[in-house]
């Protein structure tokens, strides 16, 4: 959201819980995520007075840094924020520590446990610890095992572990990883992060649906004809080729982010607002979801890969020309698919998901298209009345929009569509917190509502299993189709909807 002039009456009004005294231990502290997201998020929490004075951050990685070196590296990453709040950084950085640790070395874990006890004494953190595994995915399981073997996860009330995405590569590996993790810690200690759930507008899907009475009665197959969920990026693979080559759009975006949005959009109302009630409903709806054609998944799914594009003055390379990408790569940078949810609410309503890189706009949104009026009484400016649509804009220009027909001015009774729009910027004008600020705070507060539970993760992987197996075993049946960079994906994606007499919304 755009940062506008702050409302002076808004400052300090949020009544949020202070995190209990504790030490957050970040594994992978020399990595990109730590200095770009995690430490800035913790500093932001400190500035918001949400961290207690009894708080410490212990960075861990294999590099032989000292506390001072860690602090100065973090300070370099946060230079702009520190320039605005030098006093706050001075205080905050006193709680930053570093310990060289290789999670595969048991003696390192023994040393780590000792260091944590020293920090407990110096910072009065009372043995409360959050372990954040910001390491390569192949180390999630062994990392948990190492922590458990060192006795660092033995107190379920005082220790928890946050695991970054991706949680597994498919249904089988997710199951295996869940078993490993659950052998090391109780489910209540495990926080599987999906940073999309930290977005204000993703959480707003819940509030829109369940804090209003006008939407929920029509939020079903009787009134909704189809749902489109889009996450479009303008950027290419950038410097993530190494990871992206082995994941692709399906694993990178759809299985986690888009599926979480799908779950929030389609879930039943929870009985109460607590973590288990919400996660129960999300898991249930994902368990009821399926590809539109599981036997022949190529009929309900399109994969694409961006080719060269752009303009003569600013040409854009194709995916296969990007640094680090195999020149014959068949990794998809675009995926579109059609799903159904087999339950009373959604039976027969198609859900269309699409996500891609190098598309014309950066946009994430959910579009619910309502059924047409049963009888057309009026002439419509567009020939036929435009179906009502509710558009939940997740980013950018966060907000919501309803499209409906009104009488066009003048004699006669012609109708035309208009928009009724809500914009976070216009209504609040305040920047919202970065997703990691919210999610880190929740983990340290022991609130897992916005984290995915083991059954949710498994249900999400199971949903795409026919597709993943097809790509693995018979990729020629679902080839990556080229599309020009900065276009809306391959033509086959349009055909996917055209078969149902629909078109993708052009945001």
């Amino acid at each position, binding site marked *: 959201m755009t940062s506008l002039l702050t409302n002076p*009456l808004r400052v*300090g009004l949020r*009544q949020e819980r*202070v995190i209990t005294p504790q030490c957050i231990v970040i594994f992978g502290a020399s990595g990109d995520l730590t200095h770009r997201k995690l430490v800035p998020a913790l500093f932001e929490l400190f500035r918001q007075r949400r961290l207690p004075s009894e708080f410490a951050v212990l960075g861990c990685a294999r590099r032989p840094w000292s506390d001072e070196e860690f602090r100065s590296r973090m300070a370099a990453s946060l230079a702009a924020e520190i320039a605005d709040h030098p006093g706050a950084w001075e205080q905050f950085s006193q709680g930053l520590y570093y310990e060289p640790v290789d999670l595969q070395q048991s003696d390192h874990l023994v040393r780590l446990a000792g260091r944590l006890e020293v920090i407990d004494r110096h910072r009065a953190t009372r043995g409360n610890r959050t372990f954040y595994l910001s390491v390569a995915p192949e180390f999630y399981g062994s990392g948990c095992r190492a922590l458990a073997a060192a006795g660092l996860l033995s107190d379920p009330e005082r220790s928890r572990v946050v695991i970054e995405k991706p949680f597994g590569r498919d249904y089988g590996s997710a199951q295996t990883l869940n078993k490993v993790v659950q052998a090391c810690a109780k489910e209540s200690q495990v926080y599987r992060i999906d940073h999309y759930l930290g977005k204000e507008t993703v959480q707003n899907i819940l509030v829109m649906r369940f804090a209003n009475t006008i939407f929920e009665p029509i939020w079903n197959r009787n009134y909704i004809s189809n749902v489109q969920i889009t996450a479009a990026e303008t950027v290419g693979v950038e410097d993530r080729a190494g990871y992206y080559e082995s994941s692709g759009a399906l694993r990178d975006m759809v299985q986690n982010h888009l599926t979480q949005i799908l779950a929030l959009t389609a879930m039943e109302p929870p009985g109460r607002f607590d973590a288990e009630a919400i996660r129960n409903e999300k898991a249930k709806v994902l368990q009821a979801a399926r590809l539109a054609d599981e036997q022949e998944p190529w009929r309900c799914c399109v994969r694409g890969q961006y080719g060269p594009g752009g303009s003569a003055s600013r040409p854009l390379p194709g995916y296969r020309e990007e640094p680090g990408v195999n020149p014959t790569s068949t990794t998809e940078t675009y995926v579109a698919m059609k799903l159904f949810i087999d339950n009373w609410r959604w039976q027969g309503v198609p859900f269309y998901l699409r996500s891609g890189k190098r598309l014309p706009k950066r946009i994430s949104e959910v579009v619910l298209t309502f059924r047409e009026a049963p009888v057309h009484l009026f002439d419509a400016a567009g020939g036929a009345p435009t179906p009502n649509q509710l558009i939940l804009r997740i980013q950018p220009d966060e907000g919501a929009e309803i499209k409906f027909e009104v009488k066009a001015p003048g004699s006669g009774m012609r109708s035309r569509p208009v928009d009724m729009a809500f914009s976070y*910027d216009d209504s609040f004008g*305040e920047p919202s917190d970065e997703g990691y600020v919210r999610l880190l705070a929740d983990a340290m507060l022991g609130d897992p509502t916005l984290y995915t539970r083991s059954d949710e993760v498994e249900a999400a992987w199971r949903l795409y299993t026919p597709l993943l197996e097809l790509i693995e075993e018979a990729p020629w049946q679902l080839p990556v189709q080229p599309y020009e960079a900065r276009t809306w994906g391959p033509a086959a994606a349009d055909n996917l909807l055209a078969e149902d007499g629909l078109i993708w919304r052009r945001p």
Partner: protein
Amino acid sequence: MAAQLTLQAPQEVPPSEVSPYLDRLWQGALEGSTGAATFTLLVWEPSWLEQQMVRTGLVEGPIRGLDRDDVMAAARQAVSDCGLPFSTAPCDPRLAWALGQRPGDRHAVDLRGQFVESAISVHRPRRLITLAPTIDAGRPLETMVAAYCPLPEEGGAGDACGDAVVLRGGIGALQQNLHLIQPLVGTELPCWVWWNSSLDEPHDMLEALAPIPRRLVIDTSLGEPRRCLEVMVERIRAGQAVNDLNWLRLRSWRESLAMVFDPPSRRDALAHVVQLDIDVEGDHPVKGLLLAAWIADRLGWHLVASSAIPPEPGGGYGGIAAEFERGDGACVRFRLMTVPVGVPKQHPGAIVGLRLICEPLSRPALCVILCSESGGCMRLESGGMASMELAEELVPLPEENEEMEMARLLAGGHDSTNPLLAAAAPLAAELLPD
């Protein structure tokens, strides 16, 4: 939320045996439970009103010390029976005092400290210490101890996670045994002291119970206004973490006013405020002053002068007039009027309405009126605003009782005074004319 009883029947033990008994409890019967590493909550819980109403037969026992609908309903009735003004809030300490002058000798079981509001217990206080003075000033000290735990559906585990200690007796007995408190509080965990009574009560008890660094919770709607503000300001200046339930109850007013100016298109009007009016119930101005002080602080106004507005003959309580200077040197007029109401809120000095008039240079004047949802604010709606852009909102009444407000504070867990309150409190004290 329903209140919970302690896990076991409270055990009465001699005062000198309290600490040893607790040690035995944790090392013996509750062995294996680590207990909660959270905080200690020390509550001064006289419940004078409830005690007097039970004594005079206006309500039945037992005495519990928690907010009770039947006590509030009977208190409203008792206001007129005692000859107090209709605007007297049921929690006004003057009502308990007036009831104390009436005859009665009924008794009831006293369960203060033995009920734990689940909104509080869900935060797992490690120790809950209740000081329960009795209206019989000569009563000797009784001490009771019990283990407690939040219910599983409220997030609690099966293990006992804390204990509750009750010290009950006449004021004299409590004062003589204050030395018992420090060992019970300890130093390892943060301690919150909830002064759940009027700030007019003897100073020495507050001093004894709430030294720094204990975190203090008071209610500046209870007690003589100047005394309330002085206690709060002194403690904040001394560096104590002070929380005021009266300030917390302003939350919906502050939120509603902020919401009016959330749209960026309205923001610039805040730099051009020329007039602020606040109406409060009865004759207790502290809440209104805190609201005005918060606005003044947030908008960078400087107090020039304040004075009392004498009551109008035949009605009303009068008020306070003040003049602020904006950052650009322009003047802001402020009036706080204390107005009579037929059905006052539970606590003295509730806000009735607020009016803020802004005169931006390049657009029509803006008049913001916030009105309590439980009553009208015709006084603020009248008077020459026809040409202004009008933004009028109803402010919802909070539905939370004392214990839930307290629980919210404990959940917040701050170890310092809220900076907004720290800035507003001294200014509110300055606004109160001598």
